[in-house]
């Protein structure tokens, strides 16, 4: 089997054992990228020389006897929303074209320290606002399963890169489902850790109270290894949880779920859900039962208002977070002809530098925070947030994990929802509640929909700091399904 088809755990072991060098592994992936990028467009920035340089440095560190983690020398692709000191960081926006941060995000620097080699920066919906990667200022990314379809979003470059074997691992951020939804529609594993479990420092903010960095991988164990490598308390992020990282790697290796209580969220299903998605989901639930879990139905009636609450809270925060892009200190400046005022230049730059979805959300958030509207919109949304957290809390008294389809549909065709923001927002229907309450949730592949042969994801939600449960249940499902399929779901994907 070629290097690009190996798991991250295998690559780490091969490199640590001296059977292959980090440079060889990096080059194998760079070659694959060169081959498939014209079709996929997962990356915004690739710099072969810098990557090989990094790999060489890791080989030297290992050669000098330095003890690095299990992923030392393994390549990774970073969503282009994490600051990287040696590469441009744009959030897929024209307003930050070419900007090079003089610092690393905590996620980036921790992974550098652990010896991971950066392959490049991946595409996303501009400032992580979207569910299809069509909102990138630098072109859309294509789903490796069907190049006419979206790879999910906002972390669509990261999901596509891993699904297309361009990278064994990648990072993403999940504000309303931006890791889980792309993972589901590309047939890979994507995890949203507990809010505050992974640092936001150096992550370009979309909605501060929701943004959560997390891992993408082709299997549950790899995701857990990556999760463990960048997680943990960061004093640079005041909302970071000062608690030990849940033992996610151990959980991923322990696929035993007998006796676990699994709750099926009653509200996620029915109208608006694709039949093939529901069919695979119900099979997955039966599978869990067959593996010894006790399955019950749980009702969370307010989850149906999570989507509107989210589309008030996230835009409100973003309207403020994106105010800093003003053409004064960095980034694009438009219209500065020596006569125009700073105010005019700011407004012209922001109009030219932000795409339509970003402008839409900035104005929506500005509206929701305005005096006279605050209580009815932002204030009420925050109360709904409390209600949703309480429903999660009540549910987790009854069950150990909750399950649902990750998305109501499989990957939709590029362009289908581009002019219909509300239809686009529905892609995050099942993922948003966990962002509002801050709990952990993962998406693992659970088969292909009959109608279109495209991947379906199973979402497993666990309480705050119960991230290990996501991995344990995810690993059990993965093990059982892969033995049924005779390999990974991705092995069924068409060749590129």
């Amino acid at each position, binding site marked *: 089997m070629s290097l690009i088809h190996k798991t991250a755990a295998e690559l780490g072991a091969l490199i640590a054992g001296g059977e292959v060098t980090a440079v060889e592994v990096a080059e194998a992936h760079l070659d694959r990228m060169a081959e498939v990028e014209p079709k996929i467009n997962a990356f915004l920035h690739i710099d072969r020389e810098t990557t090989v340089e990094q790999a060489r440095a890791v080989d030297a560190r290992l050669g000098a006897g330095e003890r690095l983690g299990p992923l030392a020398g393994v390549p990774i692709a970073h969503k282009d929303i994490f600051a990287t000191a040696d590469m441009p960081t744009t959030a897929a926006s024209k307003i930050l074209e070419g900007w090079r941060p003089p610092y690393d995000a905590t996620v980036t620097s921790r992974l550098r320290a652990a010896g991971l080699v950066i392959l490049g920066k991946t595409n996303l919906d501009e400032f992580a606002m979207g569910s299809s990667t069509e909102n990138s200022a630098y072109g859309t990314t294509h789903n490796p399963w069907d190049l006419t379809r979206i790879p999910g979003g906002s972390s669509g470059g990261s999901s596509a890169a891993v699904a297309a074997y361009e990278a064994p691992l990648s990072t993403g951020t999940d504000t309303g489902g931006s890791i889980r939804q792309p993972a589901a529609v590309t047939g890979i594993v994507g995890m949203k850790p507990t809010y505050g479990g992974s640092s936001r420092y150096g992550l370009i903010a979309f909605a501060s109270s929701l943004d959560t960095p997390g891992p993408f991988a082709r299997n549950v164990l790899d995701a857990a290894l990556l999760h463990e490598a960048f997680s943990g308390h960061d004093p640079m992020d005041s909302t970071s949880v000062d608690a030990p990282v849940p033992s996610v790697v151990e959980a991923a290796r322990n696929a035993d779920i007998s006796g676990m209580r699994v709750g099926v969220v009653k509200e996620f299903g029915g109208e608006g859900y694709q039949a093939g998605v529901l069919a695979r989901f119900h099979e997955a639930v039966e599978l869990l039962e067959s593996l010894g879990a006790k399955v019950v139905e749980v009702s969370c009636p307010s989850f149906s208002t999570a989507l509107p609450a989210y589309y008030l809270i996230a835009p409100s925060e973003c309207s403020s977070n994106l105010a800093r892009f003003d053409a004064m200190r960095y980034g694009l400046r438009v219209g500065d002809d020596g006569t125009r005022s*700073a105010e005019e230049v700011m407004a012209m730059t922001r109009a030219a530098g932000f795409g339509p979805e970003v402008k839409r959300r900035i104005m929506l958030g500005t509206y929701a925070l305005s005096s006279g509207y605050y209580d009815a919109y932002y204030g009420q949304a925050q109360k709904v947030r409390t209600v949703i957290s309480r429903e999660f809390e009540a549910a987790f008294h009854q069950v150990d994990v909750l399950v649902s389809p990750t998305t109501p549909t499989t990957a939709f065709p590029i362009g289908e929802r581009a002019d219909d923001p509300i239809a686009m927002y529905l892609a995050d229907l099942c993922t948003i509640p966990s962002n509002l309450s801050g709990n952990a949730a993962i998406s693992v592949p659970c088969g292909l929909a009959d109608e279109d042969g495209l991947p379906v994801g199973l979402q497993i939600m666990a309480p705050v700091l119960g991230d290990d449960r996501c991995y344990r249940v995810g690993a059990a499902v993965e093990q059982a399904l892969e033995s049924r399929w005779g390999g990974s779901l991705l092995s069924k994907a068409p060749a590129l």
Partner: protein
Amino acid sequence: MTVDTHMPYDEALARFEPVLGLETHVELGTASKMFCGCKTTFGAPPNTQVCPTCLAFPGSLPTANAVAIESTIRIGLALNCSIAEWCRFARKNYFYPDMPKNYQISQYDEPLCFDGYLDVEVDGRTVRVEIERVHLEEDTGKSTHVGGATGRIQGADYSIVDYNRAGIPLVEIVTKPVEGTESLAPDVAKAYVTELRETLRSLGVSDVRMEEGSLRCDVNVSLMPRGASEWGTRTETKNVNSLRSVERAVRSEIERQAAILADGGRIIQETRHFHEDTGVTTPGRSKEEAQDYRYFPEPDLVPIAPDPAWVATLKEALPELPSVRRKRLQAEWGVSDLDMQAMHNADAFDLVEATVAAGAPAADARKWWMGELARRANESGVALAGLPITPAQIARVTELVASGALNDKLAREVLEGVLAGEGSPDEVVERRGLRIVNDEGELSAIVDQVIAGNADAADKVRSGKIAAAGALVGGVMKASRGKADAARARELILEKLGVSE
């Protein structure tokens, strides 16, 4: 610039009642900024004390300075405030080039401290100024306006921005409306800022330098016609950079508003700027539309919930506050209200107290600082504390006087020498030869000489007109260039002329 009409102050007060409000911003003297680890040194080269956080680079996050939180609570406690059990930072959203994030991290409806008061004394009367809130926020950067005629913002070609100041912790102290101060309104405003400044200084939380902007004051003034019950529209005057300006700005605003109202005009709610040179206020550029700051809880920082036990400890550990101290010093020194006020105005408490601590009697310490030294300071236009002389040196001079080695006249010369940089009091005495003549033989010779040269006066004394001895003593003092012990000289004169008192 149009010149506003001003109504004479007394007339304005006869027709209108002023209502005051004061908003004071204090830069805390922390080592690092409010939300990042950058230094806070005043006057550093531009953009050398900046980092991703205080420049609002994408991805950066704030982390709250523990000492700033503690200092704010201590200020609240010193101002008799209640301390919030739970409160949050909030974002105040507005675009301005010197504010990197285009929102200011501040506090909105949940200030750290609220409902306090500060008593100030004006004209022998105690006025209680109620404090509405004390909250914590961050300062902005500084713009320099280039081009145009004035260097001011209007007419400039462009601006250049230094963000060293951006993110320095700023405490905002807001009073409730102050009513009933009548003609003393300007004095109350000044006394409040003075008292507040001393309180902050005693807490050691800020260097409170108005000229460097570490203490900034906005003055709100409104007038209501006599007999009315509703307050008038207020203006907010900024750029009030000295204690004296606080007083002048209030006075000028009262006079200006009175003239408008008396003329049937309407006061516009606006921000005005005080001009140190002319002593008047002018309007700021009016905003196109009402500001809507869209405050919301800061999601990047978690709520503050001060432990009540910790707050109690902070309260107990508060230093002696200036008003309490003044009462104590007055009792210890046994001086009149008037003298206390004079020392207060001259900022002399620390100096007098230190001089007493160095061994001088309180009366002497006060006499020197408020007399000779105040005169010298006034002459050279410096504050008392700015004189090149120490309390210990003053104490030494009083000791020399008490021991009879110096009289007052010589002591003044010694002070002059010390101020001129000639060394310590003892060195000045030595170098200038200022010790009192207490050699009996030398003094006797001078007395003989003076008696011989003033036969008329000597005869008068001999004939029993003892009062005439004064002229002879004066002669001895003159002949000795002030160094004689006048009392001993008088004894000798009477003895030699064969009379007794």
